[in-house]
């Protein structure tokens, strides 16, 4: 049995404004936006409403009614922003929360209410908490989205509960507008004397369709549960998600650690059952003041080890500020992969297995940031800078073998550094070269090894590499850029150091 809750905020914008600027409380103020050359009221405070000011009125008319009227600018999109924040806040009551523009929220509360001791207590709790945040709300719970929406707005009660299957009875006394119809349809119904839903709900469907269009039938079916209505949750539901509510707000590190351990334990049990391992996990803390703090970890291999995951989270627990207290923890695994039962595929060794190596890398990247661990694979290029490529995965195997037929230095400068040389004749290694103010006299040399730039990748001159050894026995990798032409001096560079 599905149950839906509709929450209606009759004074959403005004109360949102008071929450932002506390001095506005109990004052007569309105929000206004320009509309066809004049300022039109878009939201009114409770005090202003009591003086007879309503939405849609011109500001000038409002000023005539209330002398001290404050007019504030209406920010476009403010309502949506408020509703999204409130929707996220509601996620600790139910995983499926959706925004219902312009002034409501829709929650799928199937199977949630018993945790609070029944629907009435559940709704009261939400209402009280929202009241604490400064919002007046009307709440209705019903078996369909349409019925809950209608009851929240038109029943004139703070909390309405309608049993599933009794939507028809509950909706009958309400006006047709409660069916979320267009104004033209509502007006036409009014004109025909159909003032409540009960007046036409039992009429012949074909007649209703002919006169009022298919929309009316659709809306009626949705309200009565004969037609499915989709709910787009603010946050897609993660299949691997665990939550823990706290009796008392948590403010200590050890409390957070205990909660985390418990959640990891249950999540990992589920992962093991499903033969899965997580690659990414998010730990969220819902604070009493409505803020959410979260920390995230990633792993190099699918993991289902609570102890290891806890170690990774442990490095980041400091980032959670409990402030006045945390009331709920949620642990999610957004990226889950099939568990690997054959550790040591690549790093096969009698002592080391992939799991332990991956755990080490997780700890390093968790503490010191992503992108610090690099593993290189051979690439089929002779050009030194392109002869290695970075491995993307821990298990990526080299596609080719590492070439060892040509001398390659152990240390390669990030960019070749220009040096001054004395070279006797073309195609001969230099007699000496000067790097960073130090003169190296060359005793032995090998070369040249010509490496062409791949013309299909970039343009430029080839390099003629020489391995040279100076009088102190130090070995270098030098190259001359381009051909020896004779009319201008050649450019020489130092590119690496040999052993």
């Amino acid at each position, binding site marked *: 049995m599905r149950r839906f809750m509709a929450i209606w905020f009759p004074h959403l914008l005004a109360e949102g404004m008071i929450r932002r600027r506390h001095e506005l409380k109990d004052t007569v103020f309105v929000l206004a936006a320009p509309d066809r050359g004049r300022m039109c009221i878009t939201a009114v405070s409770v005090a202003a409403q009591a003086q007879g000011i309503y939405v849609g009125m011109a500001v000038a008319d409002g000023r005539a009614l209330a002398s001290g009227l404050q007019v504030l600018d209406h920010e476009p999109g403010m309502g949506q922003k408020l509703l999204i924040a409130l929707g996220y806040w509601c996620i600790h009551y139910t995983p499926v929360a959706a925004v219902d523009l312009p002034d409501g929220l829709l929650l799928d509360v199937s199977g949630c209410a018993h945790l609070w001791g029944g629907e009435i207590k559940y709704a009261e709790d939400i209402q009280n908490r929202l009241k604490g945040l400064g919002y007046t709300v009307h709440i209705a719970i019903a078996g369909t989205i349409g019925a809950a929406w209608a009851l929240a707005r038109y029943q004139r009660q703070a909390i309405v509960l309608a049993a599933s299957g009794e939507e028809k009875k509950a909706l009958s006394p309400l006006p047709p507008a409660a069916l979320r119809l267009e104004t033209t349809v509502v007006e036409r119904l009014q004109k025909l004397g159909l003032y409540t839903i009960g007046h036409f709900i039992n009429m012949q469907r074909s007649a209703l369709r002919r006169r009022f269009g298919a929309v009316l039938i659709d809306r009626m079916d949705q309200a009565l549960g004969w037609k499915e209505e989709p709910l787009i949750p603010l946050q897609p539901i993660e299949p691997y998600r665990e939550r823990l509510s706290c009796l008392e707000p948590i403010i200590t590190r050890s409390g957070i650690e205990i909660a985390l351990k418990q959640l990891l334990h249950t999540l990992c049990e589920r992962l093991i059952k499903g033969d899965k391992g997580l690659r990414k996990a998010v730990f969220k803390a819902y604070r009493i003041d409505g803020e959410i703090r979260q920390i995230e970890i990633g792993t190099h291999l699918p993991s289902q080890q609570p102890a290891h995951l806890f170690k990774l989270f442990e490095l980041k627990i400091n980032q959670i500020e409990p402030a006045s207290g945390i009331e709920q923890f949620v642990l999610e695994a957004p990226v889950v992969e099939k568990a690997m039962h054959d550790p040591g595929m690549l*790093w*096969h*060794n*009698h*002592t*080391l*297995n992939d799991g*332990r*190596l991956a*755990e*080490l*890398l997780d*700890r*390093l990247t968790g*503490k*010191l940031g992503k992108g*610090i*661990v*690099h*593993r*290189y*694979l*051979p690439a089929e290029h002779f050009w*030194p800078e392109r*002869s*290695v490529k970075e491995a993307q995965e821990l298990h990526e195997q*080299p596609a080719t073998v*590492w*070439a*060892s037929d040509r*001398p*390659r*230095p*152990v*240390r*390669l*400068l*990030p960019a070749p550094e220009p040096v001054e040389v004395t070279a006797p004749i073309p195609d*001969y*290694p230099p*007699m000496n070269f000067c790097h960073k103010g130090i003169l190296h006299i*060359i*005793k*032995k*040399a*090998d*070369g*040249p090894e010509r490496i062409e730039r791949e013309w299909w990748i970039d343009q430029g001159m080839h390099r003629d590499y*020489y391995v*040279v*050894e100076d009088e*102190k*026995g*130090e*070995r*270098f990798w030098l190259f001359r850029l381009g051909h020896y032409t004779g009319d201008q001096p050649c450019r020489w560079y130092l590119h*690496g*150091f*040999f*052993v």
Partner: protein
Amino acid sequence: MARTDMIARLHQDILRMQGQQPVADSSAGKVALGPVLDAFPDKVFPTGAIHECISPTPSAAAATSGFIAGILGSLMKNGGACVWISREKIIFPPGLKSFGIEPDRVLFIHLRKEKDICWAMEAALQAEGLAGVVSELPNLDFTVSRRLQLAVEKSGVTGFVLRHQLRQLHPTACVGRWQIASGASYHPDGMSGVGFPCWNVELQKIRGGRPGSWRLVWMDGCFHELPAASVISSQTVFRKIG
């Protein structure tokens, strides 16, 4: 005879008390360092320990990296992995291949801050089963070296701290201190051109062993002592081949 045996056993006991585990008799753990092995206790390269290598000049850094690569090559013989922590990407993986290392089994970690390098090195040293951890950490103080040494005593990983262009030389808790410089290359047949790479290896300090200095050459995939005669012959005049 009985007396020398007893002294040898006492040496062993002292080493064990100092945290140095006896090296297992597997071929993987043995490093063929030629004549240098005589300097070590039991004539086995001490694995599961921290070695520091000081290289005062920038070009000595390449010689040190190569020498360490040679040692790591034999430590990684059975398909192990190693971690190389440095400030920037400077090691050229294809260059390691000639020292018996599969370059794709080396995990390079680039970190800017020295504090982070220390942390990463300690974490890596705690991971049992790694063949070796190399880190380029110029300033190593006693406290850090003690922490690293304690980490390896538990896990048995071999650690190398490369100290390029260090500022001060403090006493450290490392088991060995090396200074490695490159020497003129060697060609057994006296051919011209650049020959096999050579090092002037100086073991300045070794726990339970005898320090000394050697001239080594890398030939046929392992270390050899440089024949004495070649030292003079290598000072030949400039010749070009190619």
